[in-house]
């Protein structure tokens, strides 16, 4: 079993799986049970300033999107930060950290954009013995209307300013949690870096309305006939999160800035993918909310098995391995030619590949009277749609053509050399190869 011990910003945890700041980490009772279940760390649900805590709605807080068999693919929420008194949270954090010194304890904070507010809360958080803080600049609903959460995260100058205060008044690691509700995630990440952030974590939830009740004409979750946009999370947001993570990981401005990956991580594989794109660890919420704390056991066994199989001896070795392979479209090899291939042994003859290709792509699949589906190489552009819609894993594969062979679609020989759009004759701005 590979050792999953992770050191992120100098904070050690027995594995890279932390629970994200969210309902599962709202109180001592849950966090203790999460640690017993095996979670490597938690980011305690966001604390607000001293005084009467925020209040939540008293109706549904969550809405969902389902896949087949009512599998929860996406969840949105309109819950606010912790609605329990600050002092209670601080006492609980202190107790839990003392009892679980080997686990990471990060405290999420969201107070108004005033220096004094941060100056007030930071020493109190420091006194808990927690390992670091996470600045909630991402929450997209409710709090953002009050100038906090995503309202800060959408203004790089504010991010930089608040981060600087935190670095000034707190001496342990500061993680800045970013909102995806912006146009270019590199800008807030760079701002956090300028402010002195030790790391960024992303993504927070995405503005969303999951459904509309067509009888009442109210968005869901509906509170007395009205709905508000919520924050979207779960497996559905993973591709968006991974793209944002990779942008920060490969941007020259932010390259090397530690990242804690968040967004739909449900299995060990999701986690490994985020880590390969540059995350030093990952944070999970929806998977725990859907399946319970125990779900971490599969993440631990799976990541460990995969690392053993690949010969990786530490999580650190995996961090960022895929980053060099994330590039711009213009640098993709246009001389790479593939063709779809259907395994007749595995084919169950549903015809979905045919419908997809015939109706919406390149008419590159033939269907015989006895429902045998075969690829027409003369038409196949290797778009991958047939692979994506096939219900049987690995039944349709994309087979690269060997250099020197002739692509029956174009009649051209497949070139061995790499060549991209920047030098392509059709590109008006092409630069001649020298």
């Amino acid at each position, binding site marked *: 079993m590979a050792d999953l011990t992770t050191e992120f910003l100098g904070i050690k945890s027995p594995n890279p799986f932390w629970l994200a700041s969210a309902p599962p980490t709202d109180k001592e009772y849950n966090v203790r049970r999460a640690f017993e279940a095996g979670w490597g760390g938690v980011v305690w649900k966001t604390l607000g300033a001293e005084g009467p805590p925020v209040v939540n709605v008293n109706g549904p807080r969550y809405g969902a999107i389902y896949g087949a068999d009512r599998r929860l693919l996406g969840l949105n929420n309109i819950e606010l930060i912790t609605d329990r008194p600050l002092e209670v949270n601080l006492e609980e954090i202190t107790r839990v950290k003392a009892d679980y010194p080997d686990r990471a304890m990060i405290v999420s904070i969201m107070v108004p954009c005033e220096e004094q507010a941060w100056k007030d809360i930071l020493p109190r958080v420091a006194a808990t013995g927690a390992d670091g803080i996470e600045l909630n600049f991402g929450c997209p609903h409710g709090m953002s209307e009050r100038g906090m959460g995503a309202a800060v995260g959408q203004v790089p100058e504010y991010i930089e300013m608040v981060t600087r205060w935190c670095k000034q008044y707190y001496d342990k690691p500061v993680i800045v949690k970013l909102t995806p509700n912006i146009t270019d995630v590199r800008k807030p990440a760079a701002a956090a870096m300028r402010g002195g952030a030790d790391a960024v974590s992303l993504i927070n939830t995405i503005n969303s309305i999951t459904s509309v009740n067509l009888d009442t004409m109210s968005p869901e979750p509906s509170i007395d006939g009205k709905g508000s946009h919520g924050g979207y999370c779960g497996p559905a947001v993973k591709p968006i999160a991974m793209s944002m993570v990779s942008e920060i990981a490969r941007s020259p401005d932010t390259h090397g800035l530690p990242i804690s990956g968040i967004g739909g991580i449900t299995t*060990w594989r999701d986690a490994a993918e985020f880590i390969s794109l540059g995350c030093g660890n990952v944070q999970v919420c929806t998977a725990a909310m859907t399946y319970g704390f125990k779900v971490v056991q599969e993440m631990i*066994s799976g990541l460990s098995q995969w690392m053993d199989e690949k010969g990786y001896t530490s999580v650190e070795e995996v961090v960022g391995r895929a980053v060099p392979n994330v590039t711009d479209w213009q640098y993709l090899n246009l001389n790479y030619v593939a063709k779809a291939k259907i395994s007749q042994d595995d084919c169950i003859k549903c015809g979905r590949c045919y419908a997809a290709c015939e109706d919406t792509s390149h008419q590159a699949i033939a269907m015989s009277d006895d429902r045998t589906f075969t690829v027409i190489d003369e038409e196949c552009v290797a778009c991958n749609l047939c692979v994506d819609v096939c219900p049987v894993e690995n039944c349709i594969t994309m087979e690269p053509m060997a250099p020197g062979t002739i692509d029956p679609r174009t009649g051209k020989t497949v070139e061995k050399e790499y060549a991209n759009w920047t030098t392509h004759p059709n590109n008006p701005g092409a630069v001649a190869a020298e």
Partner: protein
Amino acid sequence: MSSPQNSPMTPGIAAGRLPQETLADNFADLHAPFAPHEAAVAADRCYFCHDAPCVTACPTDIDIPLFIRQISTGTPEAAAKTIFDSNILGGMCARVCPTEDLCEQACVREIAEGKPVEIGRLQRHATDTLMARQSHPYQRAPETGKKVAVVGAGPAGLACAHRLAMHGHDVTIYDAADKPGGLNEFGIAAYKSTDNFAAAEVNWLLGIGGITIKTGMRLGDNLSLDDLTGCFQAVFLSVGLGGVNALHSEGEDKSGVRDAVEFIAELRQASDLATLPVGRDVVVIGGGMTAVDAAVQSKLLGAQNVTIAYRRGRDAMSASTFEQDLAASKGVRLMFNLQPTAIYGDGAAGEIELEYTSDDGGGLKGTGETIRLPADQVFKAIGQTLETTGDLDLEGRKIAVTGAGRTSRKGVWAGGDCASGGDDLTVTAVAEGRDAAMDIHATLSA
């Protein structure tokens, strides 16, 4: 196809009633292993229930939701590890467990849709994958120097020995047969354990190290409990039920009348099924798994007519509904409320007389009405009994145990079919062996 010398119509007890190819088909895996696509679809149906009812229903408490999730995320080896952590004979249990009465009966999707997650086959998918790809997955703890004797190399004994060896103890297993495995090797229908799986599993299990097996050693014969307690710090008895109950019917001594367990063992050990004789008209007396195994296999060997005669009603049959349906689908006739009274024939059995029974609440009684069935072969499958007990206290007809298999004698534990409590199932035996091992380990470490 090669044509056999005999046919199902051949009178008497005869070998080679069916062509080799048919026999091979008949005795192929009852539940074929999952192809990867099937496993993925089956695993996808699991809801990962909290405090899952399937786990509660499993005598060995395998963490079923976790192992299924591990299959669906592409790590069947990790899934197998989850299984073996609770049940080192998870491979055999995946094949022989009456899952329809245990985990799959409890599955929430059985309740919701009448179609449970196929836990047994998924378990086999995981365990087969690991056993094919990896050597033994556990490391033995440093040797403790403590010696434990295990008597009986069946599921309970093997599970106990493995767990003890894992904790560093030195284990010697004694078994009366010429090879280990117990009922896994000798007592299970051939189509449930193909390709010599039982023997392969024992070899794999011994990979832990620290276990010595001595065969041909029978308690009460060339082995005594007093000697064992003298030489070992602890003794675990898992001797099974070696005796077979008698019919007490007239003509029971005629040739053609035999114990079903003997027939099942012979069939499992046969290298060429075409050489195995079976009757044209077979009658099996009994209502349990042994009766079904004997009846179905008689039919698969080519017997023309096979009947199970059970003295009580269908509801009382200990063979599961699945097993009953399996027998029926293979062409076995199930007859109820019938008990044997006499077997007729000139030296060899030719006909059996059965009397109808009824139970009006005051016990089972013959009604006086009888029928006769042609029967050139009669299998007795009316239960087995404990053969050797030493001076241990009994509970009913089994060794009395308390807690994790503690017998009335200090330093002696017992588990599996020979011990009181629990169903006589492979999986229950594994649980008892494992738990006794933990108790022995705790006692020896104290």
